[in-house]
């Protein structure tokens, strides 16, 4: 047994056993019975037109089909008896009709569905199950596939932006780059704060990649980009405890449930027609934010250089001579323009879906190619998916979802480093030539004057290589056995296998590779996550009013990440870039594992679809915690009351078409704390004089426990004015306790910080959303959406306050509140910088040593965020827009102390903004001190509010105009349907601060990371049905 267990493939045996047990008996059980048949058509009540694609299902059986183009359906092989048939179609209220069928007979049942703008019957995906929208007691956002299909976007994460309570920011505008997503505020400090992503029941890992060189510190890494957004049927963001507690220790940051498309079941007589779809899109992009950092012209740079020398005491003639000597050849280059381009993107997706008999399928293949707006940046993805479901018997269903994706990516150096191209835009003197006399990139400035570590914007970018190649296979095989109407047992086994291959080459002429005659780093990550999940579902209705739906489950998972790296240096020829040609090579490899074991349950009860109760519980065990703290319990309770269904409320609720109050409370956890954080460890990185050494690498903390979060939610769903106005208002409060923190310790201990359960924090807020159907008519309609989230963060317990970069964490304050030196401007008399001595701002000093950092009520946490938009249709034209906004937060641009240089970084250049606003003579009301070679003391420190900006912005994220060609016309060109759509992403951006020389979408921490700015893309696409 033990040996079997050690085999990773043991579960296959289990699965085989499962199939044998459940798969055999029922097939024989029903073979000799006689059957009846039911036929009919389904129409829409408002238009009296047939509804093609209506889900037709015989309640309490596995029998069902879809209506065809004429709204007709047929279901065969029905055991004789009395049944209810249920018709459902998105946007319409479900309808149930009773019928009786005898053996060998054919019954006729027609359906007529009424429009239902509330879509209460819509089935939404929840953790380990589904629910009708009206049953929900928890808080979630559901996003349908339509939003994903039109956008020329790399990843689905883009589409979550603007959802109430969810903050999404792109960390980097590079193609394939990562996102930061925070559901209802920052729930953690040191542990992860990103939500859990679950695709078709498989938790995904968002790996940082194999090499930090490629991903620029994690910003450009996004293994979720391997998922083709077009394959996604629905996205659901779970926000409160009632929704997430069933994910226990991994639910605290919210959960994003992704469901991929499936086929549609046909009937034995006619297969549902295969739906072929071809989608193409082409786009071209520029910068989304027009006011990006600008460098100097050659003439300006010369003036900057010479006047700084003169101000530093050099004679004018000497200064000019020094300039001429430093720059024997002079050009006038705009490095930003020279390294930017209009990136072109292309996309083709082909899919087929359908079903026949007991078998349904969805098959797709996609290609996506995107160039970045900076030379050499690109992201290409090739993906395919096969989703199959086979109802082998009436009771036994087997499903298999398999996706394969491969992506290629080349990045550039951005972020904060001399090698960063964004730095060079401002810093690289414009007078430096592009080419030298041999036609190669100019590199005399490597030696004198020594600028930017010998980098050259073109030389570094063109000669370096930063490639990432990702392959990901997600396989999910599941079987479910329906014992009877009440009990269903399901078992699902999944793998998520990905490989990341990072290939970095730094050339022998420019930048960091030059001292080593070129360096390479070739690293690979292989990650295998397997999970087994087994659930038993029970649902039953008593007396037609007591509905019970319960699930109990067991789950285990194991993750194994292995990384190998080879690196080296010293190449003999510039065209050589791989390790075999390097004179010196090194190799290393690492492995890390973690495992979870869990038992969970959830019970939903409702009384007559009016009063709803839910409860969930999960016990998680994780290898990440010490033996003393290995197991944690998580739970939630929720309740809902559809007031408009209560007779006695009729007087009060008469104004409302729908009014539902729901509330929930629970405790969830956060296990994203790294792999072995509790153990005292000796590491073996040191090497000295060719001998291997060891060092104390981690301080023991066996009491380290889960971060847990107590979350409260109360919400009201409403609909008024004939359901033309609908929406939700919600209040949430999340109290995070036992927050893990790398608590800084005295460095005399030999450690910089120690992970401890150190503090408590509270996030609270109000989410308000409204949808208004302003116009509804045959030929046109117009709907408007708006939502706003008001959120607050407060540290409620902290053993000691501490400074963390630009922030200081203290009880009673926003976690993200800045703690900085206060800039008091340039002294008009002498051009020297002045600083407030303290938070009273009553006195100033020109010496930073006499000033202290202080709070100024400015935080990186936005007060308000949300989105707005409208969708208008006129006949076959549809125009839709989505805008997002954030207000009340501040962005800290640490790089500006370099970019807006006043001479400290000479002979490096400076920004046009600093150049034009510097102090020149007494009396000048200047923004920047006088230029001086070597800089002015106390002028350009970090952690100063000189570099703080109002972050408020409004961005028109998406404008899409689409046109649906009439079917007759489409038919003439051999197509079933044709839709054309024109789209602009990031069409317009408004920022409050006109000195914001970078994109307003930055990291959650508000710190500008000098990444690639976001792009504005114009694209044209066609969707063809066959």
């Amino acid at each position, binding site marked *: 047994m033990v040996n079997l267990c050690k085999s990773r493939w043991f579960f296959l045996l289990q699965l085989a056993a499962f199939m044998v047990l459940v798969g055999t008996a029922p097939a024989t059980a029903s073979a000799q019975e006689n059957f009846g048949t039911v036929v009919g058509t389904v129409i829409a009540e408002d238009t009296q037109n047939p509804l093609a694609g209506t889900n037709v299902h015989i309640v309490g059986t596995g029998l069902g089909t879809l209506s065809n183009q004429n709204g007709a359906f047929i279901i065969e092989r029905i055991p004789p008896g009395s049944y209810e048939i249920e018709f459902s179609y998105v946007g319409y209220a479900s309808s149930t009709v009773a019928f009786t069928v005898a053996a060998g007979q054919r019954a006729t049942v027609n359906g007529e569905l009424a429009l239902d703008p509330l879509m209460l019957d819509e089935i939404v995906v929840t953790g380990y199950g589904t629910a009708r929208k009206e049953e929900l007691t928890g808080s979630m956002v559901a996003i349908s596939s339509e939003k994903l299909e039109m956008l020329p976007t790399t990843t689905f994460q883009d589409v979550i932006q603007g959802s109430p309570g969810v903050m999404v920011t792109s960390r980097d505008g590079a193609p394939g780059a990562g996102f930061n997503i925070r559901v209802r505020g920052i729930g953690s400090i040191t542990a992860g704060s990103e939500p859990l992503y679950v695709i078709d029941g498989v938790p995904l890992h968002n790996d940082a990649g194999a090499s930090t060189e490629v991903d620029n510190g994690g910003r450009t890494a996004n293994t979720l980009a391997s998922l083709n957004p077009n394959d996604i049927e629905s996205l659901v963001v779970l926000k409160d405890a009632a929704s997430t507690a069933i994910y226990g220790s991994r639910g605290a940051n919210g959960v994003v449930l992704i469901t991929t498309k499936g086929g549609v079941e046909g009937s034995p007589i006619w297969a549902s027609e295969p739906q072929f779809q071809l989608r193409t899109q082409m786009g071209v992009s520029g910068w989304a934010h027009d006011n990006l950092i600008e460098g100097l012209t050659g003439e300006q740079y010369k003036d900057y250089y010479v006047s700084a020398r003169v101000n530093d005491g050099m004679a004018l003639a000497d200064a000019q001579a020094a300039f001429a000597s430093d720059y024997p050849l002079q050009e006038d280059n705009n490095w930003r323009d020279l390294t930017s381009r209009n990136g072109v993107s292309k996309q083709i997706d082909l899919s087929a879906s359908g079903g026949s008999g007991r078998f349904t399928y969805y098959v797709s293949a996609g290609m996506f190619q995107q160039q970045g707006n900076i030379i050499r940046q690109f992201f290409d993805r090739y993906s395919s998916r096969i989703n199959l479901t086979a109802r082998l018997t009436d009771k036994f269903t087997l499903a298999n979802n398999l996706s394969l994706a491969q992506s290629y990516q080349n990045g550039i150096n951005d972020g904060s480093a001399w090698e960063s191209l964004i730095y060079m835009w401002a810093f690289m003197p414009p007078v430096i030539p592009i080419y030298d006399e041999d036609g190669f990139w100019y590199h005399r400035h490597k030696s004198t004057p020594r600028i930017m570590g010998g980098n050259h914007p073109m030389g570094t970018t063109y000669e370096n290589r930063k490639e990432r190649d990702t392959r990901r296979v997600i396989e999910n095989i599941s079987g479910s056995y329906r014992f009877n109407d009440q*009990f269903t047992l399901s078992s699902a086994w999944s793998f998520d296998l990905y490989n990341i291959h990072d290939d970095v080459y730094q050339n022998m002429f420019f930048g960091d590779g030059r001292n080593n005659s070129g360096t390479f780093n070739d690293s690979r990550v292989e990650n295998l996550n397997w999970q087994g999940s087994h659930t038993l579902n029970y649902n039953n209705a008593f007396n037609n009013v007591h509905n019970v739906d319960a699930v109990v489950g067991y789950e285990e998972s194991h993750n194994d990440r292995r990384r190998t790296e080879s690196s080296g240096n010293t190449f003999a020829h510039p065209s050589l870039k791989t390790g075999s040609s390097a004179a010196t090579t090194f190799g290393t490899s690492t492995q890390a594992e973690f495992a979870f074991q869990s038992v969970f349950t959830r019970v939903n009860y409702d009384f007559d679809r009016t009063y709803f109760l839910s409860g969930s519980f999960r016990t998680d065990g994780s290898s990440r915690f010490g033996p003393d703290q290995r197991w944690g319990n998580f739970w939630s309770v929720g309740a809902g009351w559809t007031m408009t269904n209560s007779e006695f409320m009729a007087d009060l609720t008469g104004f409302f078409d729908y009014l539902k109050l729901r509330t929930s409370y629970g405790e969830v956890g956060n296990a994203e704390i790294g792999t072995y954080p509790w153990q005292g460890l000796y590491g073996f990185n040191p090497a000295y004089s060719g001998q291997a050494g060891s060092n104390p690498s981690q301080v023991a903390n066996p009491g380290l426990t889960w971060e847990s979060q107590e979350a409260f939610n109360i919400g009201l769903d409403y609909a008024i004015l004939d359901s033309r106005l609908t929406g939700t208002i919600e209040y949430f409060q999340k109290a995070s306790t036992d927050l893990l923190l790398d608590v800084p310790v*005295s460095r005399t201990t030999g450690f910089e910080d120690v992970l401890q359960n150190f503090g408590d924090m509270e996030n609270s807020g109000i989410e308000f959303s409204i949808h208004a159907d302003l116009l509804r008519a045959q030929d046109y309609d117009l709907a408007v959406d708006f939502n706003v989230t008001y959120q607050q963060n407060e540290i409620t317990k902290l053993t000691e306050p501490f400074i963390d970069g630009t922030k200081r964490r203290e009880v009673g304050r926003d976690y993200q509140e800045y703690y900085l030196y206060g800039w008091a401007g340039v002294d008009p008399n002498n051009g020297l910088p002045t600083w407030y001595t303290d938070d009273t701002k009553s006195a100033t000093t020109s010496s930073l040593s006499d000033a202290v950092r202080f709070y100024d009520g400015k935080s990186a946490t936005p007060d308000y965020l949300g989105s707005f938009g409208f969708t208008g249709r006129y006949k076959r034209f549809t125009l839709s827009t989505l805008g997002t906004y954030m207000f009340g937060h501040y962005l800290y641009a640490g790089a500006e102390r370099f970019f807006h240089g006043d001479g400290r970084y000479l002979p490096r250049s400076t920004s046009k903004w600093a150049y034009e606003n510097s102090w020149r003579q007494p009396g000048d009301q200047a923004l920047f001190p006088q230029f001086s070679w070597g800089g002015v003391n106390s002028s350009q*420190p970090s952690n100063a509010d000189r570099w703080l900006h109002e972050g408020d912005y409004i961005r028109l994220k998406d404008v899409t105009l689409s046109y649906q060609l009439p079917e007759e016309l489409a038919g003439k060109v051999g197509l079933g349907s044709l839709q054309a759509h024109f789209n602009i992403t990031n069409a317009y951006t408004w920022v409050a601060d006109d000195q914001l020389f970078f994109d307003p979408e930055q990291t959650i921490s508000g710190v500008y990371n000098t990444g690639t700015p976001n792009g504005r893309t114009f694209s044209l696409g066609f969707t063809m049905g066959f």
Partner: protein
Amino acid sequence: MRYKTIARLAVLVPVLMVGSACTDLALEPHASVSNDAYFATVADFEAAVVGIYDEMSATGYYGRSIHLMSDIMGEDIKQNSSANRYQEFADFEGQLVSGHNYEYNLWRDAYTAINRANMVINNGETFEPPAALAGDFRQLIGEAHAVRGLVHFDLAKMYGQHYTFTGDASHPGVPIVLDMDITALPSRNTVAQVYAQAISDLNTGISMMTDTRDGAYMMSTEAAQAILSRIYLYMGDWSNAVAMADAVINSGKYSLLSGSALVDIFVAGNTSEAIFEIPMSADDTRGSDHLGGMYRDSGYGDYLPARDLLDLIDPADVRWGWFDVDGALAGAYASHRVDKWPTDQNWDNVPVIRLAEVFLNRAEAKARLGQDGAAQADLDLIRQRSMPTAPAVTATGQALLDEIALERRIELGYEGHRIHDLMRNKQGYTRNDCTGDVCSMTYPCQYCILPIPQLETDTNINITQNAGYGG
């Protein structure tokens, strides 16, 4: 039906649950060993001692910072046009340039080395080595002690005023740390206490070490004695300085280099003159972040030798080989570069202490004791090995001390001595060949020592900042 359902469930559920036995939650890391399982063999101690040396070789410590900062505060260096790194110390700005963290990195690396030594020493107290390995084990513990003494001394000289700044050295030094305590918030010991600890540890080391395990690359009895000769010199304890220098010189294990061997002293590595030095190899991949990279054209090249020193060197002196002319340096920046660490890949060794210094330590101590003849002999030995034509030194008294000081400047230039020699002799200077903002220094000098790093003062309420660096 109901019975069948229950029967099926009864079979299926256990089958699926068997998986529960399969996931082991007690996973151990692959690249580390739990503390409980470490220090179980002499080999564990040996690796842990290697870990101490590794930390000493970090860029923040002997890899670059400690020598560089000690020299750029002196007058023998000028800034290149691109100088930016460490500039706050070269110009005595008296404030921290955040983002640089040089004062922090040295502090962190030094105390990390101390902690690694403490782990070895303290775990060694309860460890019983096999009899056959008892000597090896004592050697390892001895090395840990001696290194811990050296690191405490290094910290005191960088973050505290020199020993003779007050009559009883009661001015603030650095915290003495002898135990691993993650919650400790130590206050500063006096310089006298830190020196006493350093001397005690070095002597403990001397009493335990019997071996030279890896040439000059690891601590040895003679290395500890040589360091003690410097410590006593800094304290003005001349006779002990002489005694320790004598012990090293009379051990007969070392000899002075001459000619091209002297020029290449840090390229060759582990020479007959090396007593304790930090080896750099390809594995360290320091690139420009090596001490040599701060001087060399192929590195950052931020700092250049000042004519103040170059003009003192006789044209016939072999030690001109430690400089080379860079034609690309124009105007005030002309004309030389320091080339003591000349290898392009920057893997030349960095000295901690070498025989020439021990002779100069002894010369100075003897001159202070009035033994001018013996002092002249030691000085001649150093001077004439690089310039055989140099006349024998005849100066006596203060003039002899000046000659010895001059020789230290030339011989030990850029090896981290200058500011400490100035301070202990209570001397200021004028930088004649000056390209920075500050061209003179007067003694006493509050900015000639480093500030306590802000990250320390932020977390450790018991630590006091040095004068002039704010609260």
